[in-house]
């Protein structure tokens, strides 16, 4: 059984992405007791699936490493992975929270040696790589995974493969008898940092994401550019493995659109500008990028980055929302539309199209405890009536990483205000 030490002065942080980790660390490094709950088997959330960050072109895993070191060094944070909040009762200063913990089938004995994976043949979709590839059904979600522990997929539990994994482990780390658990814990304040998900590109049917293999999303493109990704960092198009030297980026794929997401997702312009660097990096002057946009939203000092990309002769900008993608005989996706600066029609073939899909709250369309209040887009709002639950990061708004971390830091203080008050009251 999983045991959790928590009191009404404990801060519960829901979501172990960069926002949740930040909120948890800031609170813990101020001396507070924190329970950090994450649905995935590892911490880090969506940022660690990015290859680089704009505008520095540095690697998200670099910050993750620091955050993990902070976490490892801090005894005040208890991390629960594969856990989801199923209910919240009580109020500010005294919540009772129930959690559902899915079995990992691997216990803390795991040394991450990988023997179980060697013993298993079954492959499952690799969620870490947005299902662009497969992993063994006994797997370490990524090389950066923390806890650094393997996971056994439930599909092989109860079968010969599960037994093989168990037999391969010299340390009794594979425990196929693990069951789903329900845990209830006490908390004084809750930080809700459940993050975002990429908008479902299939819903924008005229872009043919469901039909054309060479139409991918921006988050998938991050994996394609990452040397740890499914293509080993080579920008290859899915249909035929050909190098994708001529890449189109379609902005506002879902965002700023009342048929899809009403809001502007903020990060995607910068994201695509960044991704033109990947193309340049991979192919030099042979790499061509075209950005189809409505407005380039390179806000504040990000403008510098935009100006730099704009000055690159290998990147062109077309002010137009692409109207539809078709596919030519060679499997090239063709962008059709009208350049609105002047009236210029185009039907331009590219090797690959990247849809800059927007950001929607992870919990949109999923049932979350009614105590967590959200607006019409699904973003978590401050609820004055239930003043002990605070949103953080992209659960509250479409934010870039920097702003999400600011938001999470602020949320940590709001939570601390509550537990400090509890502490004062209890003397």
């Amino acid at each position, binding site marked *: 059984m999983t045991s959790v030490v928590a009191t009404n002065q404990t801060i519960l942080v829901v979501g172990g992405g960069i926002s949740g980790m930040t909120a948890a660390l800031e609170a813990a*490094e101020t001396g507070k007791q924190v329970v950090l709950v994450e649905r995935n088997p590892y911490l880090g959330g969506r940022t660690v699936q990015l290859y680089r960050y704009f505008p520095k072109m*540095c690697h998200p895993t670099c910050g993750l490493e620091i955050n993990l070191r902070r976490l490892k060094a801090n005894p005040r944070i208890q991390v629960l992975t594969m856990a989801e909040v199923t209910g919240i009762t009580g109020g500010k200063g005294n919540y009772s929270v129930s959690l559902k913990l899915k079995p990992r089938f691997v216990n803390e004995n795991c040394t991450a040696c990988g023997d179980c994976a060697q013993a298993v043949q079954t492959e499952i979709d690799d969620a870490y790589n947005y299902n662009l590839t497969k992993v063994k059904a006994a797997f370490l979600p990524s090389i950066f995974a923390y806890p650094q522990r393997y996971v056994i997929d439930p599909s092989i539990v109860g079968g010969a493969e599960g037994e093989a994994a168990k037999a391969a482990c010299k340390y009794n780390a594979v425990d196929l008898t693990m069951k789903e658990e329900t845990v209830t814990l006490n908390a004084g304040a809750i930080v809700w940092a459940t993050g975002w998900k990429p908008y479902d590109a299939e819903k924008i049917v005229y872009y043919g994401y469901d039909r054309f293999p060479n139409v991918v999303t921006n988050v998938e493109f991050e994996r394609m550019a990452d040397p740890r990704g499914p293509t080993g960092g080579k920008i290859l198009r899915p249909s035929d493995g050909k190098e994708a030297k001529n890449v189109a980026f379609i902005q506002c794929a879902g965002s700023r659109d009342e048929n899809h997401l009403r809001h502007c997702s903020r990060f995607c312009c910068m994201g695509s500008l960044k991704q033109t660097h990947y193309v340049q990096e991979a192919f030099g002057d042979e790499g061509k990028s075209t950005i189809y946009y409505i*407005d380039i939203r390179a806000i504040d000092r990000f403008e510098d980055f935009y100006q730099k990309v704009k000055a690159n002769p290998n990147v062109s900008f077309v002010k137009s929302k692409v109207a539809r993608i078709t596919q030519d005989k060679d499997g090239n996706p063709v962008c059709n539309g009208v350049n609105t600066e002047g009236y210029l029609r185009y039907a331009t073939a590219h090797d690959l199209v990247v849809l800059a899909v927007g950001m929607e709250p992870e919990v949109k369309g999923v049932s979350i405890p009614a105590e967590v209040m959200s607006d019409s887009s699904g973003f978590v709002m401050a609820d004055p009536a239930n003043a002990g639950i605070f949103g953080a990061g992209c659960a509250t708004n479409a934010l870039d990483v920097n702003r999400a971390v600011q938001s999470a830091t602020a949320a940590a203080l709001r939570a601390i205000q509550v537990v400090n008050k509890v502490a004062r009251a209890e003397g």
Partner: protein
Amino acid sequence: MAEMKTAAYLCKGCEIDKRVNVAALAKIATKEGKMALVREHDFLCSADGVALIQNDIDNEGVTHVALGACSRRAKTEAFNFPTVALSRGNLREGVIWIRPDTPDAQETTQEMAEDYVRMMCAEVKTMQVPAGNQKTGTIKTILVVGGGVSGMTAALEASKAGYKVVLIEKAAALGGWAAKLHKRVPTREPFKSPEDNGVADMAARIDADANIKVYLNATIAKTSGSPGRFKIDIAIESGSVVTEDVGAIIQATGFTLYDANKLPHLGYGKSPNVVDQAGLEALAKEAAASGKPICRPSDGQPVKSVVFVQCAGQRDASGEHLQYCSGYCCNVSIKQATYFKDSNPDIDTVVLFTDLRTPGNGEDFYRSAQNRGVIFSKGVVSEVTANGNTCTVQFKDLILNEDTAAEADLVVLATGSVPTSGPELEALADAKRAAESGTEETKNVVLQMMDKSVLNLDYRQGPDIPHFKHGFNDSHFICFPYETRRTGIYAAGPVRRPMDILQAQEDATGAAMKAIQAVENAGLGKAAHPRAGDLSFPTARLEGCTQCKRCTVECPFGAIDEDEKRFPLFNESRCRRCGTCMGACPVRVISFENYSVNTVGMQIKAVDMPDEFSEKPRILILACENDAYPALDMAGMNRNAYDPFVRVIPVRCLGSVNTIWITDALNSGYDGVMLMGCKHGDEYQCHFVKGSELGRYRMSKVYDTLKGMNLEIDRLMDMEVAITDMDTLPGKINAYAEQIKAMGPSPFKGL
């Protein structure tokens, strides 16, 4: 203090015992490592293994533990012994996982493991458990500089958490820029209508808050001390100075609008009917107060048509005006446009923009303005001319692709923000140098620059926090927006980055969080980010100090002042424990309890050095523990083999690398040295800001030494490594090893 008792533990798990002779390692730990206690275990990280170690600590008096097992990044929950000095020999990721399991490789693999055992033993013996200095200051009051929305928010939020606050505002009233606003951009659904600016309510809450002490008409004359014990001399209205003791500082000094007088081509100064956004707010307030519509300044007639010019003097690639986008101005112009449309829908209201930037729910606000009939045109304004009571705005309409013009009673220029961030420190230092023996004029330049100082820090490294880009006091770190180069001092709001009110409030709350954290940790002697919680701190053997000032100059965080005798004065709670001072010190008098010239130097010496005929070169790798070391680790996790002749020592930062390590290594027969550190320069990735840059600069001097020693300069290799280089790093190591082998053994070998 208890007697030092050392113990080494060697794990046989994860096939370590299959790949290397663990008994031989144990012998080395005993004989060469001189460990008092040496134990082997089949599965050291298991509950049983951990209990074994803990039992030795509790009952055998073990004070120093050397673990030969997996990487220091692995199994940290199990190997958590906070009461003892701990070193870790990386036999798994560092040896067996990066070596092929072949009979050929066996010998060199064993040698590698043996060396790491020697190194961990050598290291642990030179370490002490940091005691922490708890006398660095226990004041928990937060100082907030600036009484605008950001400052007021920071003050209120800190107070709400139970902390006392001193709030300083240079003007006669709280409110800052927001107080000048007729209304603010909407902050909640449906994001359609401008809201009250909220200033009066916040100011009233501050008045009523017993935790918050406010100084109006006040500026900071001097800031001294460090987190937990800052002393703030406040110049108050009467001309006298009062002193407040505070533990941390939030600088929320806001911004001014870019001077529209620099934009004569846009008509500013040529017609009173051309205003900036502040001018328009003033007109709107005046109109609201008088109950009249907004009138044009030239003749007081109601405005019938208005044109907003976005990016006026902003996003200017020529460098003449602001290069950046101020981010908030699109929404502000939209808001101002609603002032007109809400009073009279027939007022012709046009916004000329090149990219309309309304992120997030700003899109709803944008739509609501369109719905009110505000016309948005994508166009570039070339000129605004005044003709009597109206203006002509010449612009290129980018959609209709033509040059055209619009007539307007009023033109509003969205000029953007300039941070109130104090003088730029490098420019100030240059000016000071020029003034040292210079004219009155050059001295006046310094005075003028100092006049802009906000904090007037008496730090050796200048009076304010360093600028980042375009004069803003932001952090360079994407993951760590509150990272600051002056510990315990946090910028908040538009002084750190252009931002709107809502963001500023969020930012100020975050800054209050960091300030509170800073005072809590200062009192406990704990380091701030990124080595949060580290209790070690640098001490100097002053009797050996030559007063060269390198440590005070190089400290990236301005932690070291000079005392009256010109010796370095360490302000521990400002220190971030990067060790740059230690690396800088030519006489090696600076050290940490658990990280010193010795902890690394002894490891270098501990490595067994084969003679020149063995064809077994030795290459020392000093790897940044934040990025390069994890990358090497993950190369191991991927079972990517690399050369068996390298010996890796993690360092806190390249900045902490003392040149003595390099010269000692080469002198003692190493054939090559590789330095692996983070990217430096404009897009630096060093977590200690300047550490890797300073370290590299220092190394450039070593090349001269190499020449002096008659050694090939390629025996020292400086490599930029990112954490993601795990797949390419082995190849680079191997290539370097080949290069060294081709060069032949070091002439110093065996001397």
